[in-house]
């Protein structure tokens, strides 16, 4: 876990909108959800007779939600568009409809073939989001990494054509989390994003894990950089513990407290050529094998044999990446992220993905493909809660055209930062090494419901600085339609099916009825209000 963080100190330019947005969208504190063991145990409390809701499928069997209109894109297309992107746009929905879901997924997995000019153009405003630690240090004002890197990530989520890649990058950041607020890790975070996470997100997990172990960000974040075992010194256990507990086999993965101590010796001397600006270095003068001095010492089925020094630690990392318990736990975590937390550790979809992972030497793309083309995935529509960042990106992608107005970049940057801060939706700001929780209940409470409803109001009003409302892409006010027709069109745009009673109440709240003709300019002010109300509804809150 990190050294002290001082959040909020940077919050200079709060906009009126952001200031009143709540910051309670934050998920609950770290908990048992980090591991494969996270499947809830049975409650000991006697069941009550109160009816419980059934599995949520929009308009599905048993559902009392409004039926999905037949004229809209098919539910399976809409499901893929919601779950595998940061929010459906009309263009994505028509792309998936045209080629079919599997072909679209395969195209997204082959991400290097997708041209993505918008990302470079948009993120070029965030100078401190790229560069080596040395380059960041030379540039100065290193604290700007805390702002620029998360904004670059959030903006990429909005504008990128490589949506599934961006989703997967988010998964790996959570899995191998580093808090960008950590002073020592800060300079190294841009290269962690580019050279560790993004370079390996669709590669091999064993390479990803090795790259993270040798990254300045992780070495500083988990205190490995200063750990030494020479003389009578006691090595720091932090990285050794989280490597096994969080990054690979999980807390019940088959190691003991004594094993944590032993592994901390294995990595003693793993450090940086310079804490603030350097790259990985192995300092044999700080290294001692400790319990591994005996070549018979075994942890999780690994012993060092004749290996010593840095090679021993590297061998252990590769062993952990390929370990069968790691395979199953990673497969399960990916299923929870892309299907839902109802998937159990031993479900068929997890076992299938685990086998693909093992058969392909920890390759991520085939593992992911096995999950995303499964029946379990296809049947999981709306079974996840949208995180606050996803609510924001989905709202922007649904209602804005050129989603980033670079002419006001500096001003926009601070406004965007303030909104993400207020929502606790800032990428790379989770303080503990377990990453943002993948547990639906962690994202919902009274405070976060209020924040979610307020965000919908802001999005409806088109009041997110730098993001231009695309009125032309919404139904036309002057075409002789009724207000009711307009509302149906807006509902289709954001994917919220309406039933007549709710539609009537929404229209009543703005003093209109279904048949009110769109004739006067005075009708136009009701559009933002109705759009906001649509995005407050449960179907927009789930994915």
């Amino acid at each position, binding site marked *: 876990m990190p050294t002290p963080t001082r959040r909020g100190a940077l919050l200079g330019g709060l906009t009126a909108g952001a200031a009143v947005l709540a910051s*309670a969208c*934050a998920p609950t*504190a770290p908990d048992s959800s980090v591991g494969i063991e996270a499947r809830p145990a049975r409650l000991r409390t006697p069941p009550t007779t109160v009816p*419980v809701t059934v599995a949520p499928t929009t308009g599905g069997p048993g559902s009392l939600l409004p039926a999905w209109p037949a004229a809209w894109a098919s539910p399976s297309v809409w499901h893929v568009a919601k779950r595998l992107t940061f929010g459906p746009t009309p263009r994505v929905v028509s792309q998936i409809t045209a080629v079919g879901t599997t072909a679209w997924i395969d195209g997204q997995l082959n991400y290097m073939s997708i041209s993505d000019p918008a990302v470079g153009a948009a993120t070029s405003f965030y100078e401190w989001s790229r560069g080596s630690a040395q380059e960041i240090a030379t540039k100065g004002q290193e604290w700007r990494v805390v702002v620029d890197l998360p904004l670059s990530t959030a903006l990429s989520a909005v504008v990128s054509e490589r949506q599934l890649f961006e989703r997967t990058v988010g998964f790996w950041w959570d899995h191998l989390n580093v808090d960008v607020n950590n002073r020592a890790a800060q300079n190294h975070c841009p290269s962690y994003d580019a050279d560790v996470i993004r370079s390996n997100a669709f590669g091999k997990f064993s390479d990803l894990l090795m790259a993270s172990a040798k990254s300045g960000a992780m070495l500083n974040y988990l205190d490995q950089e200063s750990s030494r075992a020479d003389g009578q010194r006691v090595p720091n256990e932090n990285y050794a513990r989280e490597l096994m507990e969080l990054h690979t086999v999980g807390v019940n993965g088959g190691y003991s407290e004594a094993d944590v101590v032993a592994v901390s010796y294995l990595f003693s001397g793993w450090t940086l050529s310079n804490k603030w600006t350097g790259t990985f270095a192995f300092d044999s003068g700080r290294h001692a094998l400790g319990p591994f001095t005996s070549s018979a010492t075994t942890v999780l089925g690994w012993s060092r044999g004749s290996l010593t020094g840095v090679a021993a630690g590297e061998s252990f990392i590769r062993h952990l990446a390929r370990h069968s318990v790691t395979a199953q736990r990673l497969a399960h975590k990916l299923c929870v992220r892309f299907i839902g937390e109802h998937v159990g550790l031993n479900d068929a979809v997890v076992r299938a993905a685990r086998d693909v992972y093992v058969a392909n030497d920890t390759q991520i793309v085939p593992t992911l493909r096995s999950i995303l083309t499964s029946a379990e995935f296809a049947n999981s529509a709306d079974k996840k809660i949208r995180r606050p960042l996803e609510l924001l990106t989905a709202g922007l992608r649904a209602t804005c055209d050129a989603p980033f107005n670079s002419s006001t970049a500096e001003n926009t940057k601070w406004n965007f930062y303030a909104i993400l801060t207020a929502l606790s939706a800032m990428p790379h700001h989770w*303080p503990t090494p377990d990453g943002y929780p993948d547990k639906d209940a962690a994202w919902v409470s009274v405070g976060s419901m209020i924040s979610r409803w307020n965000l919908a*109001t802001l999005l409806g009003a088109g009041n997110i600085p730098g993001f231009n409302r695309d009125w032309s892409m919404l139904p036309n006010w002057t075409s002789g339609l009724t207000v009711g027709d307009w509302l149906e069109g807006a509902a289709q745009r954001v994917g919220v099916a309406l039933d007549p009673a709710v539609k009537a109440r929404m229209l009543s709240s703005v003093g209109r009825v279904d048949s009110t003709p769109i004739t006067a300019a005075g009708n136009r002010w009701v559009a933002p209000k109705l759009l*906001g109300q649509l995005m407050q509804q449960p179907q927009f809150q789930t994915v």
Partner: protein
Amino acid sequence: MNESSMNESSMIQTQLTRRRFLRNSGLAVAATGSASLLHTHAASAQDGTPGVSAVSAGTGNTLLVITCRGGMDGLSLLAPVSFPEYYALRPSIAVPQQAALGLGGARSDSRFAFHPAATRLCGMYNQGSVAVVNSAGVSNGSRSHFDAQSFLEGGIVDSNVSPTGWAGRWMSSTLAASDHPLRCLAIGSGLPASLRGSSAVAASGFDSLSLLPWGPSVETVAASTADLYNRIGVHSALTPWAAPTLGTIAEVSSLGTPERPESFPNTEISKNLWPIARLLQAGFPIEVAHAEMHDWDTHDAMGAATNTSARMYSQVSELDTAIGAFFDYLGSAGARVTVVVVSEFGRRAYENSSGGCDHGRAFPMMVIGGGVRGGVYGDFQGLSDAALDQGDVRVTTDYRTVLSELLSQRLGASSSVLNATFPRFSPTSSWLGLVSV
């Protein structure tokens, strides 16, 4: 959905059926366009729900839990200055005897002394309103943050997958006492695991307790949106929240937009304690409150105890200042509020090569304020190799013993409520005597 999460969901639903003023009158009336019944006082008058100025049907007392996340180094906060091993184990970070704040007053104790930054806590100790239970902790020996926090907040130490928290179970087992929406309140980053399984309010501050003033009114949200949340087919994690959310908005709106006073500085813990202090001062019947503070995971660079810019010093100082400001603000109303400070574990007795301490076991559990009988409690067995548990201070008092006593003595929890709150746990035969009723 699996069976356990359905049960969790139905438990919350059960609680919500009690919110008749929202579900049957508030929402229905709002839907027909009349807003008045969403107002606190009207709701109170209608079915006897305690309103802003009312005292809850319970004891009227509040238990405020402060969770120090990351593993608080108790050997810095309350230094065992009379134990020579302490200085041998911690050559660069021990609290020097001459700088430590001695425990005076009626329960003076020369074995231990407060960190130099804990001036307010020491002052309150000397006045008899701080009890420290040494060597307290989670009796399961996990040194994993995530396991230990799960045990601590789950209130169950034989499983790290409890879907409900101890405070959540306390709340659901005492529903008859009060169904006020602000009965259980957590300020911080979301709903803490200790309050899972309840409809406790979790917010980051006053901003997340109000709708945008220029957006749809609470009546409009109730009519056009919130109703949908109760429908079959909606995600089970969303369903329970619309009604308590509307109730909370209505209640808190009576306070306007409170501004944090300067006495609560711009730190995480002060910002989290301020809304609780304001709402308590306004008379809201909060029974269990929770505030959190991060960054206690001091694996490195804790710094000398006398270095006012060092990491450990500022951690202790921020906590100390916030607790002082909290009781200052409440004044005489503070007599009804008992604070308990917990962490998932303490830290190792000896320092590591990075100038910090790795994960340990026991920590000194502090009980502060209303009803407290000050003094040092608990069985601290010393810092010799034999006394330590794999290098850590041994846990000799299960933290649930302390929480049970506070729930019983301050909130009037019966033995059946305690059994529901901490299943498969029996407190020591008699209370430690930390608090009076």
